[in-house]
């Protein structure tokens, strides 16, 4: 570990525990707490990655996840950020975007032809000859990737959490810590969030060697640790700031959705690199990167350093270098270096060159020296480290996303927040406050204000602690005749690229971004946007404010898809009889959120099982679980009025004890639901809905009750009531043994409703005929449903009973020509098209959708018809949604189809144009494979057209009941 320093006062590494990993085939040893980059740098590695476009060697730049010079991948994880990710013991890492190896990257050949690859070249090239485009596309795709995606990855999900606090403080630097304490002292709950594993921020690396601040640091950290109402969330960043102060906090364990009443943004600033020739050579880095390297990981950035500075912070970095034994050969100050830190630097005998300009970094594989000018005189120095301290840009993403505006402060040469939304506060360096004492005061007043805002108390006026001198260079850009001055390191964007974009008319910040791709790389402009804005402003003669900035959208840093996915909450409903279905070999299907038996696997195949179920219903008796139907209780003074308004048929004239088909359309007359309504009393109805619409129908009805101002209560009892349909010629005989209810036609006619006990429990019986046989829907409390079902099945054995599933029911109802809403209707179908004009009672004064239906009745163009397939071949079976073609034109589609075991032919329903709807008309159906088959329009119902079987005479029932 040739560059490892002696222990630093605040270092993050644990020297008693080592970590070994492999990088580009070489074994690397570091300490627990190291990040990958620090361990590599400590071992003498300077080339840690290759650039995106030209494959130039890259080392450390920001060392803070503000660039992607060190982008790695393992066998199963891409985009590992070496600057902030700790190495896993024994893990193997490889630099992304290399052809060959990091040391011998064939991709570097691209730089030889770089003059033919100006910005946006791919927008203009490769169009002709056209046949070559696929080859170019393949080549570009191969060249342009960052890392390799292993598509065999398994599903990964990280849990999400909700968290609530009164005040959230983003950033645990000096001002953030002070803000958290000040807010907590007001008695509110505070969450303090920082992306680093430890709180402290710049106080712990920029001021790590300031002895005068030790007490301040200890006080802040100790107080935070002692306050129960401050929750510290470290190693987590605020990925997005959303409405109502919801923060997406991305922690290593998963995403935290944090709700705060007030938010203090203390995110600080990003250090911006200087732009000059070869500023990307390994060894050229931001001064703050060098300070992090030394303070956190005890690694020397270099042996001999030159510091290029435009602010006091550069001198502070020089002092840190000196303390750690690095030879500082010169300070290149772009102005005049008068500040509190320049004095000890000069006293240490370090040459300080004022009014200096950087010209070029020299070196082939890494930095070997710098060329600079002082007062126009060119000079050079040998060095292996060049620290850049030329300015800052606000880490303003949370504020931008909250709706804040920024304006350029010409004294500070920095963008500062101007208008903050209610409940949002800023403090510290993002506010232009640079003195530590002032940062703490600024944090205190922001934290106090945030807490007072929570408590609805008036917020006192703020004291302005903004610095009174510039901490940023107004234009830290030095163009060189030979180029290679990089502004955006992610995308290899140089000065000439942006100049080219501007010259071609892309002279608006958003246009320039999109044409040149500046700020569009993985670090999203953190190290490049400010310099891009400065360049654009200068070249267009505008101010920084006039030039504007791009939009800072979430996510602040890339966020794993597994974090966004979270755990899967996919509610699933089971009917009360589910356990029976499982024991009875049910094959389940999803019906919305429900699991329903599609069929019971009692025979050798699915088809045979379904056929047996159909046969049981037609010839003996079957029982189907219909608990999934929506079930609404409607009661109160205006219940009949509500029912009349909701459904197309008149409901108010129903007798108590009667049932009626209930068809619902929306305002535009489109069929949206159907079911059966029964009347319990003058002011009490009970109505079913389809399985999939129970919740939406309930919501809509509730809304209508309010809109119409009716005195009525609607209760969604779907899950509280179990329901089953007992159907078949033996159903009455069977049921009569389980209830005292008089089931005779006279006492309980078709479409009547009765309330009585079955198997000893209260039940509602409805005589319906959905499947076309004598049948009874039985509705009981959910807790009694399984008992009733079991009793019916037990007793039913002597009546040849079979449970039947959804598929058998579909066939049975198809034989009767009954529609399924949502299958035989679509998002445009009205009752006339569904061939149900009988279900629309226009004599009613009003019902939902009536005005539309009055018009639609005269505009009908299509209709649902029944058909029989003329072909008998098994592979000629059309599918639902297959098109019906006439003279090459589409004239309809199949909505339902099935092979009727009862009728021994293929029957179906189809929505067709009126011209094709006459009985005996021939329909041509286009199969999925393109072949055509013929069908013939027939009358419905296909089965028992007189309905005699669902309303049998007493004599036909063998004297039962």
């Amino acid at each position, binding site marked *: 570990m040739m560059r490892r320093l002696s222990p630093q006062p605040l270092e993050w590494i644990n020297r008693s525990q080592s970590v070994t990993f492999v990088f580009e085939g070489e074994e690397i040893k570091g300490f627990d707490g190291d990040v990958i980059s620090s361990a590599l740098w400590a071992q003498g590695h300077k080339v840690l990655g290759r650039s995106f476009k030209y494959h130039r060697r890259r080392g450390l730049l920001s060392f803070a996840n503000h660039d992607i010079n060190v982008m790695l991948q393992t066998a199963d994880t891409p985009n590992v950020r070496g600057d902030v990710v700790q190495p896993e013991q024994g893990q193997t890492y490889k630099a992304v975007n290399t052809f060959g190896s990091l040391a011998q990257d064939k991709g570097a050949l691209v730089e030889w032809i770089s003059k033919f690859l100006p910005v946006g070249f791919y927008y203009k090239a490769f169009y002709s000859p056209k046949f070559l485009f696929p080859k170019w596309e393949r080549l570009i795709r191969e060249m342009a990737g960052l890392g390799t995606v292993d598509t065999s990855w398994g599903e990964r999900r990280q849990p999400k959490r909700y968290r609530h606090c009164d005040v959230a403080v983003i950033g645990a630097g000096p001002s953030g810590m002070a803000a958290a304490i000040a807010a907590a002292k007001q008695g509110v709950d505070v969450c303090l969030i920082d992306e680093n594993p430890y709180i402290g921020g710049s106080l712990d690396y920029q001021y790590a060697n300031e002895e005068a601040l030790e007490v301040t640091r200890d006080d802040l950290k100790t107080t935070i640790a002692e306050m129960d109402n401050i929750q510290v969330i470290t190693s987590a960043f605020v990925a997005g700031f959303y409405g109502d102060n919801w923060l997406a906090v991305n922690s290593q364990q998963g995403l935290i959705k944090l709700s705060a009443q007030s938010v203090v943004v203390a995110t600080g600033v990003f250090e911006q690199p200087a732009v000059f020739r070869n500023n990307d050579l390994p060894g050229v880095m931001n001064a703050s990167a060098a300070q992090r390297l030394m303070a956190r990981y005890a690694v020397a950035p270099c042996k001999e350093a030159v510091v290029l500075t435009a602010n006091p912070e550069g001198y502070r970095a020089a002092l840190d270098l000196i303390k750690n034994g690095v030879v500082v050969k010169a300070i290149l100050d772009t102005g005049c270096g008068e500040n509190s830190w320049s004095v000890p630097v000069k006293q240490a005998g370090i040459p300080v060159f004022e009014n200096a300009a950087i010209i070029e970094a020299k070196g082939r594989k890494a930095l070997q020296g710098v060329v600079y000018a002082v007062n126009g005189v060119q000079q050079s120095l040998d060095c292996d480290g060049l620290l850049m301290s030329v300015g800052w840009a606000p880490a303003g993403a949370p504020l931008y996303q909250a709706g804040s505006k920024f304006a350029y402060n010409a004294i500070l040469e920095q963008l500062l927040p101007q208008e903050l939304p209610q409940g949002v506060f800023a403090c510290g360096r993002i506010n232009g406050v640079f003195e530590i004492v002032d940062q703490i005061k600024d944090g205190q007043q922001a934290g106090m204000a945030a807490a007072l805002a929570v408590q609805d108390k008036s917020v006192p006026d703020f004291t302005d602690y903004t610095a009174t001198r510039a901490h940023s260079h107004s234009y830290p850009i030095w163009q060189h005749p030979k180029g290679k001055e990089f502004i955006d390191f992610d995308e290899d964007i140089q000065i000439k690229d942006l100049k080219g974009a501007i010259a071609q008319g892309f002279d608006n910040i958003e246009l320039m971004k999109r044409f040149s791709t500046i700020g569009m790389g993985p670090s999203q402009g953190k190290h490049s946007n400010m310099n891009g804005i400065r360049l654009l402003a200068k070249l267009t003669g505008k101010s920084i404010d006039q030039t504007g900035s791009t939009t800072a959208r979430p996510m602040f840093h890339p966020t794993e898809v597994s974090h966004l996915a979270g755990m899967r909450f996919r509610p699933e409903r089971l009917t009360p009889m589910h356990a029976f279905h499982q024991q009875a070999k049910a094959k389940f299907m999803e019906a919305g959120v429900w699991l329903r038996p599609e069929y019971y696997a009692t025979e050798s195949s699915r088809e045979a099982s379904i056929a047996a179920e159909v046969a049981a219903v037609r010839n003996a008796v079957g029982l189907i679980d219909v608990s999934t139907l929506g079930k609404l209780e409607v009661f109160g003074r205006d219940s009949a009025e509500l029912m009349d308004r909701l459904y197309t048929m008149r409901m108010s004239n129903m007798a108590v004890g009667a049932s009626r088909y209930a068809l619902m359309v929306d305002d535009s007359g489109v069929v949206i639901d159907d079911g059966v309504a029964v009347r319990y009393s003058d002011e009490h109805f009970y109505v079913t809905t389809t399985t999939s619409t129970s919740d939406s129908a309930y919501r809509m009805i509730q809304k209508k009750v309010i809109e119409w101002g009716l005195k009525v*209560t609607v209760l969604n009892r779907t899950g509280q009531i179990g329901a089953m349909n007992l159907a078949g010629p033996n159903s009455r005989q069977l049921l009569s043994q389980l209830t005292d209810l008089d089931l005779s036609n006279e006492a309980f006619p078709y479409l009547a409703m009765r309330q009585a006990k079955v198997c000893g429990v209260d039940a509602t019986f409805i005589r319906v005929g959905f499947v076309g046989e004598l049948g009874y829907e039985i509705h009981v409390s959910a807790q009694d449903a399984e008992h009733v079902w079991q009793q019916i099945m037990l007793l039913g054995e002597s009546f040849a009973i079979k449970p039947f599933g959804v598929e058998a029911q579909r066939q049975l109802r198809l034989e009767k020509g009954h529609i399924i809403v949502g299958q035989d209707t679509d998002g445009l179908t009205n009752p006339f098209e569904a061939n149900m004009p009988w279900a629309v009672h226009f004599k009613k004064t009003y019902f939902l959708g009536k005005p539309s239906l009055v018009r639609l009745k005269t505009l009908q163009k299509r209709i649902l018809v029944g058909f029989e397939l003329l072909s008998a071949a098994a592979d000629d079976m059309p599918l639902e949604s297959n098109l019906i073609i006439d003279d090459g034109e589409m004239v309809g589609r199949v909505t339902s189809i099935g092979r009727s075991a009862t009728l021994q032919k293929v029957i179906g329903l189809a929505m067709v144009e009126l011209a094709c709807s006459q009985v005996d008309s021939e329909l041509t159906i286009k199969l999925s494979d393109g072949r055509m088959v013929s069908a013939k329009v027939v009358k419905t119902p296909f089965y028992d057209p007189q309905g005699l079987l669902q309303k049998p005479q007493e004599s036909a029932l063998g004297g039962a009941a």
Partner: protein
Amino acid sequence: MSTTQALQIHCKPLPGLMHFRGANMASILEKNDAADLQIFQYRKLSDDRFIANLGAEEIYFCVDAAESLELQANQYAFPRADATFELSGNWKALMSEVCIYDFRQSQPGDFLMVSIAGVSAWLLIPEADEPLILGCDPTFGHYFQEILMKQIEESPFL
């Protein structure tokens, strides 16, 4: 304290749970010594039963099987077969992963209706050292218990 116990969930049947709707619900509260019960609060009764005031026209009430129901005009009673559970340990930590509600706002005695893991549920906020009682539509009961148990077993936060 419940927060130091391991999180556990188990079924807690609440027989006799009824949903009363209609006029003069205050009379039912009065009859059960709960006339002072504020809206969205519950009170424990004997035998694990409770009564909750959900508004002028609505209450939840675990009726005593030994008592007969006497409803006034325009009062309706519907049995509820809700899946009900008892959640012991640091239940607020578990809730933070499945429910958006800010439980800092809740007080012992509160009756809450919230969405948990995508399912509408009601909660009886307990005293600090007592387990949480929660219930949901019976058809979601299996999913509800399974997802909470999975969360308890797999979450790195718990």
